[in-house]
């Protein structure tokens, strides 16, 4: 079983020093999630010197449950070092540039497929105007059906100004960092659990392009959000993320889409995923601790089906942290306690994990939990 060390620090320098002083085993992979307040460029620069691949992202809060320490942190950096067999995985950073969201997803998929016949992806995506759903669909379009894809959109402490992903090879504010794993030898399982509830009457998206919604019920999306939530323009994105649109898809399934940015000059809102024109939507909100209880029940069910994991990763929506405060610790702790495994993650602006049909999808207001385990070697 691979060895794991979990570290956390409140400064970039402190984390760098602690990683360099780590002597218990020789790491082959570092997973680093940090608050932009610590200076992500500095953290990326430091991690490039560590001598092993790094999967890194800026956050809206950090999650770490190792042998000691609390579950959720703020304005800190958390790190997980492991000596996982290097032939089982690879890490790479991708710059989106001018590529379409789908093409960008396909680029990531093609990289993974070149390395492994049956890949699984864990990705973090930076950039506040990126369409997480279209990127996930792009990956899926190039991969065998059922390819596991987990991860989240990077955060920036709820400032909604600039997010980062980084690796040992660099930093991007409009790209993605990905770990690809060989599912022939590594098992990847997980859940995505939400609990947000639709509120009020249905409305119709009357004009949109991809993840940019111009009008709802023929009214400016900005004006509509401001009126319904009674908020000032400066608060729109910060507060709006807690009140995503519940989008009814043509197949009857529903999906939550959170606001990521606003264009006040056009009155448009940019969502974390696609909201097609003509979609029937409702505001949604969360009501009470039963949402945490529900996620704990689902985590228990997952444990029942998959009781082994050497590492757990959690991508939890920032809205869960804002709404439930320290109660989100309960779901993180439930997972860590059940598997007796280290857990690392961060609070995100969007989550990737299995939907109700079991196929991986892009979500908001969700906890996406990923179990990683080594499969027994076949004789």
């Amino acid at each position, binding site marked *: 079983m691979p060895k794991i060390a979990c570290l956390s620090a409140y400064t970039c320098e402190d984390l760098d020093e602690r990683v360099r002083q780590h002597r218990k085993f020789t790491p082959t992979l570092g997973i680093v999630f940090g608050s932009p307040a610590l200076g992500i460029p500095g953290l990326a620069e430091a991690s490039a010197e560590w001598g092993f691949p790094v999967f890194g992202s800026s956050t809206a809060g950090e999650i770490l449950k190792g042998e000691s320490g609390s579950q959720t942190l703020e304005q800190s950096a958390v790190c997980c070092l492991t000596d996982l067999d290097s032939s089982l995985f690879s890490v790479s950073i991708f710059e989106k540039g001018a590529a379409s969201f789908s093409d960008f997803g396909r680029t990531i998929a093609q990289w993974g497929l070149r390395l492994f016949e049956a890949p699984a992806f864990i990705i973090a995506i930076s950039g506040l105007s990126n369409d997480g759903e279209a990127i996930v669909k792009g990956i899926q379009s190039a991969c065998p059906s059922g390819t596991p894809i987990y991860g989240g959109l990077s955060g920036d402490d709820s400032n909604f100004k600039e997010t980062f992903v980084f690796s040992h090879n660099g930093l991007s504010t409009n790209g993605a960092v990905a770990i690809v794993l060989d599912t022939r030898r590594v098992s990847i399982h997980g859940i995505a659990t939400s609990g947000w509830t639709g509120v009020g009457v249905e409305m119709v998206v009357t004009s949109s392009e991809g993840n940019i919604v111009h009008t709802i019920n023929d009214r400016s999306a900005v004006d509509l959000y401001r009126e319904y939530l009674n908020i000032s323009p400066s608060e729109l994105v910060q507060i709006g993320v807690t009140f995503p649109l519940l989008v009814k898809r043509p197949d009857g399934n529903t999906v939550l889409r959170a606001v990521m940015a606003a264009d006040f000059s056009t009155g448009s809102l940019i969502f974390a995923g696609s909201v097609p024109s003509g979609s029937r939507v409702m505001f949604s909100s969360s009501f009470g601790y039963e949402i945490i209880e529900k996620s704990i029940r689902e985590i228990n069910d997952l444990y029942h089906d998959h009781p082994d994991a050497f590492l757990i990763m959690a991508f939890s929506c920032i809205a869960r942290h*804002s709404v439930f405060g320290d109660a989100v610790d309960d779901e993180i702790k439930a997972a860590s306690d059940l598997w007796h495994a280290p857990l690392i993650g961060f609070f995100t602006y969007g989550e990737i994990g299995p939907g109700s049909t079991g196929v991986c999808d892009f979500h908001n207001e969700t906890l996406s939990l990923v179990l990683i385990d080594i499969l027994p070697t076949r004789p």
Partner: protein
Amino acid sequence: MRQTDLLWEEMQALLHYLPPADQKRVYASFSQALKGVTVLESKYTRAIKDRAAVHALLKKTSEDLIQRYQTIFEYSCTAMIVIEDDGIISLANSLFGNLTGYSLSEVENKQNFFTLVEEDLRDTLREYHARRRLGDPAAPQMYESKIVHRSGKVLDVAISIGLFPGTRQSIASITDITDPKAAEASLRLVNKKLNILSSITRHDISNQIMVLSTYLELTRMEITDPHLLGYIKNEEIAANAILRQITFTRDYQDIGIHSPVWQDAGKKIRETAGTLDLRTVSLTVDVNNVEIFADPLLERVFFNLFENAVRHGEKITQIRFSSTESPEGLFITCEDDGAGVPWAEKENIFNRKYFKHTGFGLYLSREILGITGITLRETGKPDVGASFEIFVPRGRYREAMHQGAAR
């Protein structure tokens, strides 16, 4: 200035008395603590803003819902009112004003609903109102009644009424059926007159045919000329045909006159069989506990099936009725082991002018069943036996024993 800033100023004053190394340590710890407090402050502010936004969202969406239901209430094509526990109308739509001749300001929170009901029916409606509030599931939800217009004109109305869940307020939808009721009454009267007329005419024609038949019989006894006897025979055939057609008009006239009713199919089959001489034909009825919604002449359908089997079955020894349920509905089958129906004649036997004089009965049977959407067809094999399949769509049959809901 915030409490933490004040505290920090006081701390700085105190730090001067400490050695530089201790000052640095205290400064670092305090900075970390202050950072934590700042995070907590921002979370607290955020929580308050989130809470305010939740309230705003709930308020606005509640207003939306109220507006939506008010629109439905107003634009419903029936008069609608909300009736309080004491009978006072607390809310009414414009159509209710039009229906009763009162303005909404005269009605809302002032008018007692029962005072608008025709005097003879008031107590009945009050009783329904009370039973509904006691949770009596048998309290009628849809019924006809009469209300009095401001002008004194009595209106026939259809009322659909129920309680708002968890309240003692009723919501009633009232439709003016005065004109359809008057038209229905006129139709019934005209129909009755036509029936009387055709009944008298039929009676007279039958009498005249009887006279004609008698004279033909007497004539036959008087003559021996085979040529003339042939004429008489043809005249008798024509007279019988007229009699048969007259009988058909009698039977057909009764179809659809009375409203369809729920009838125990197995019981009706057995009762009909009891009125017939089935001779040596054995009967099995495997149709149990099922009621079908059909014209009261349903018995005639079974009579025709029995008669058809016995008269045309030739080698027939048994008749069996059975029923099976499918996702689409209920099949009641009447099978015999007689001569069966040739492939080419399976539809023709339902034609009233066709096939060995069977047409009238089977044609009438289809008409009787068709009143409530039930179909009849023949699905047997020639030389093996006839098989008549009655298909009852869902909603038109139910369990007989417990008067259950229609399936």
